[in-house]
């Protein structure tokens, strides 16, 4: 890797304004692929979900998945887009081993949805993001490079291709240029991706899992000198697999571009890869406007012309708009403005909602996701929904606490076990022997030993200083490795000494 000259973001922003563009790819959760009847299940054995069409065998022809069109229209409507009365697919021609036809069936100048917008909130300010288009396309297969040290293509001994993903329906959402105050750019980018995740998750048309690739974001960024109106050369950062990474990628590219521009250099128009571990980007394929995909209308597919009646029917099925939903949830949950803003900012809105739905109280749900889970996510550099624990499990653990079977401290160990794949919360409790001991026999013996071990404290209690019980409770808890029912221990101590 070449050494980059990086300028601290704050300093860079004194001289330059960032201009961003965000592209989000959404994998739809249709049961079959975009142009054939193959199943779309994630994680199947390689090359088991394929057929003549998605393998591009000679002579095979595509047929459009009507459900994918419906999902595309619903996404377009949710993004406040116009829905095309007539549009076509187009072929994007380029050679790549994991793309079976060596063209991607996509949409070019006739997208199904266009001219929309969404409003996202950062630090109490609302920013409007204009949507240029949302179009339909198909995913490619996946290459796996075997051998070598990096898992990348260079240095690999050989490569394998899995075509299960080839032909999975995708919606690509492209923003117009986003120009917001430089110090807000990274947060706005993150908030936008998070907003789109919630919006589309609410439609039920995609799993919107960044960690599984069903939501993928590309960050395009350029800098222009303050006061200038001329756009700079942009880089396109791919492989940005979490909300946090969106923010980091924006910040890194601001630093990197500023470093180049400060030295009088020019930014190369290229694709860059984001690295989660270092928070940096590295050069991928060089790209230029001369890159020629030789688009032309796909002659194997009939044009798509959704009737206005159908579009209106689909509009009527849209869930309430996010702003309305947020206001309703805040009222239902009794959250303060700050609590609500923190919940949204942490990308935890849906997780909290699902946890409450599963039976937890709003405050308990918020406490776990914004406390314990946020801490873990931060440590791992991951998003909350990729921690390996579900809202249902959080609700179950809270129920176990409410039932007195574990306490908050033990709960943390249960979370560890669930995340480590040791089973359900119940199984983890049994496996790790975490249950709170409230049996008077076992507790009584420990209490007796604690009293014997600390006569001073015992005397103070006998003298009416009940606050001294804390020292004895601590001793019992220590002996019981935290698994004692603290409330019962206190009762037993007081019974014995007063």
């Amino acid at each position, binding site marked *: 890797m070449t050494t980059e000259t990086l300028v601290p973001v704050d300093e860079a922003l004194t001289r330059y304004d960032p201009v961003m563009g965000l592209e989000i790819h959404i994998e739809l959760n249709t049961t079959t692929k975009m142009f054939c009847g193959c199943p779309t299940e994630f994680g199947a054995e390689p090359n088991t979900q394929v057929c003549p069409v998605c393998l591009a065998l*000679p*002579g*095979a022809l*595509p047929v459009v998945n009507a459900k994918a069109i419906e999902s595309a229209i619903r996404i377009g409507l949710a993004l406040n887009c116009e829905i095309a009365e007539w549009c076509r697919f187009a072929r994007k*021609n380029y050679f790549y081993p994991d793309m*079976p036809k*060596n063209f991607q069936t996509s949409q070019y100048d006739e997208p199904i949805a266009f001219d929309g917008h969404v409003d996202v909130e950062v630090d109490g300010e609302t920013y409007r993001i204009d949507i240029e288009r949302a179009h339909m396309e198909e995913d490619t297969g996946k290459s796996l490079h075997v051998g070598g040290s990096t898992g990348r293509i260079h240095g690999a001994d050989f490569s394998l*291709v899995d075509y299960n993903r080839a032909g999975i329906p995708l919606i690509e959402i492209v923003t117009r240029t986003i120009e917001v105050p430089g110090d807000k750019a990274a947060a706005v980018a993150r908030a936008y991706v998070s907003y789109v995740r919630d919006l589309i998750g609410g439609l039920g048309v995609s799993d919107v899992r960044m960690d599984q690739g069903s939501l993928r974001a590309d960050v395009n960024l350029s800098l222009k000198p303050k006061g200038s109106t001329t756009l700079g050369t942009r880089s396109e950062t791919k492989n940005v697999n979490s909300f946090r990474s969106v923010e980091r990628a924006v910040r890194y590219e601001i630093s990197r571009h500023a470093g180049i521009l400060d030295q009088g250099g020019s930014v190369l128009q290229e694709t860059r890869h984001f690295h989660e571990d270092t928070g940096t980007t590295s050069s991928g394929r060089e790209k230029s406007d001369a890159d020629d995909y030789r688009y032309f209308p796909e*002659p*194997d597919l009939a044009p798509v012309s959704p009737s206005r009646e159908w579009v209106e029917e689909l509009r009527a099925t849209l869930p309430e708009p996010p702003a309305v939903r947020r206001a309703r949830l805040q009222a239902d949950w009794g959250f303060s403005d700050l609590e609500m803003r923190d919940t949204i900012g942490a990308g935890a809105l849906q997780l909290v909602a699902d946890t409450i739905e599963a039976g937890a109280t709003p405050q308990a749900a918020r406490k776990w996701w914004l406390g314990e889970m946020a801490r873990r996510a931060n440590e791992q550099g991951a998003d909350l929904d990729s921690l390996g624990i579900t809202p249902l499990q959080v609700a179950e653990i809270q129920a176990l606490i409410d039932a007195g079977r574990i306490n908050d401290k033990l709960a943390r160990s249960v979370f560890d076990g669930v995340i480590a794949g040791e089973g359900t919360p119940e199984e983890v409790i049994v496996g790790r022997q975490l249950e709170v001991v409230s049996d008077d026999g076992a507790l009584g013996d420990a209490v007796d030993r604690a009293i014997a071990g600390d006569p001073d404290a015992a005397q103070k209690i006998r003298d009416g200083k009940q606050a001294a019980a804390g020292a004895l409770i601590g001793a019992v808890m220590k002996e019981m490795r935290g698994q004692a029912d603290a409330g019962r221990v206190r009762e037993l101590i007081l019974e014995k000494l007063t």
Partner: protein
Amino acid sequence: MTDLTRLSASELAAKLARKEVSSVEATQAQLDRIAAVDGDIHAFLHVDAEGALATAADIDSRRAAGEGLHGLAGVPIAVKDIVATKGMPTTCGSKILDGWIPPYDATITQRIKAAGLPILGKTNMDEFAMGSSTEHSAYGPTRNPWDRDRIPGGSGGGSAAAVAAFEAALAIGTDTGGSIRQPGALTGTVGVKPTYGGISRYGLVALASSLDQAGPVTRTVLDAALLHELMGGHDPMDSTSIDAPAPLVVSAARRADVKGLKIGIVKELGGEGFQAGVSARFNEAVELLTSAGAQVVEVSLPSLEYALAAYYLVMPSEASSNLARFDAMRYGVRVPPAGVDDPSAEQVMASSRDAGFGDEVKRRIIVGTYALSSGYYDAYYGSAQKVRTLLARDFAAAFEQVDVLVSPTSPTTAWPLGAKLDDPLSMYLQDVATIPANLAGIPGLSLPVGLADEDGLPVGLQFLAPQQADDRLYNAGAALEKLLEDKWGGPMLAQAPDLEVAR
């Protein structure tokens, strides 16, 4: 005893239905004929004697059991090597697919199998249907049964020659710019390009998706109608397939009556550039139609002068993209680059395509890639699409005045092998009369109308009709066929030279 190979498909079907002959006998007769003459003609790239006889035996036993069968059940058929046939090689006449055996059937293959037609084998063609002479096959040319030093036309020269040489009564062809009709004209057989969308393209290896159409190759108009009806109708696997009742082609072929029919002679498709013997036979045929009560007028299609140029932009553009899938990654021959250690996938793709594709295919991929390039798209592909719209309007206007249009199918009769091989433009010009139907998506039928005086070789006449009016072609074609056979005292192919039979 009747020579079963000389029967038309409908005649053979009738004999099979009456149990006068068995399908095994008929199929064996065709296989014997193939064994006897195909060493010379080279109509077939692959013969499946075992499979064909197994189907025939199955049909015979089902017929014996009294099962209701399709009208063509047991009639052997030859299939152009561009149609996917499960378990049977499908090469498209290209080295790049040498040894590829499809794991699936084209829709038309399924329909043929379901109807119980024994598949004799796969017929030769110009590589990926690119050519008008079948000389561009990677497996050697097919020879014209009328004169074995001449080409049979193309790209479907194999199917046409097989039918003309009595190796099969039925064959399937595909027509992107004339590949069914022009070989039909040059071999004295009947060939039909149906309305675009009339017959499923699923499983036809694509040359140009917006132009390709499969159709029948036969010796009689009625046989063509029977095969057309069998293959046609909506297919949900092909998005461009027409979801509407198919034209009633068989009853039209049986009607065969042109009284009162309005026929338009296409002014631009005749005269200069057309061989004298071709024009003479064409004019006589038109006179016959007039004498039978048709009203003949001349019509003009002004945009026709741009059709050839538009075709040679649309076709290679779509082909350049359609042929991109032949990359040696999933199927087909893989040829690693010479002298490169640890080649990349891209290098293997490039060297395999270099080794696997012939010159004409490469020429068209290059032209198509160029025509679609950013900055050239509007001038080339875009303009060509506008010509298609203009041409479709011209045809629509013409069909307001007349029921069908006529022209010679090909400007010349069959030319000597090699004569145009180094002159692609002169080869492309052979398609001038057939290409417009593909560009406009309308149906066309070619049938033999005699032999040219100067060389004694077959001449074809083409009828054209509006989209979805394929029945008009069969009505007019069958009427003209009957008028001509009455005049000749039998079918024209009876005048074809006997082929030397290998022993």
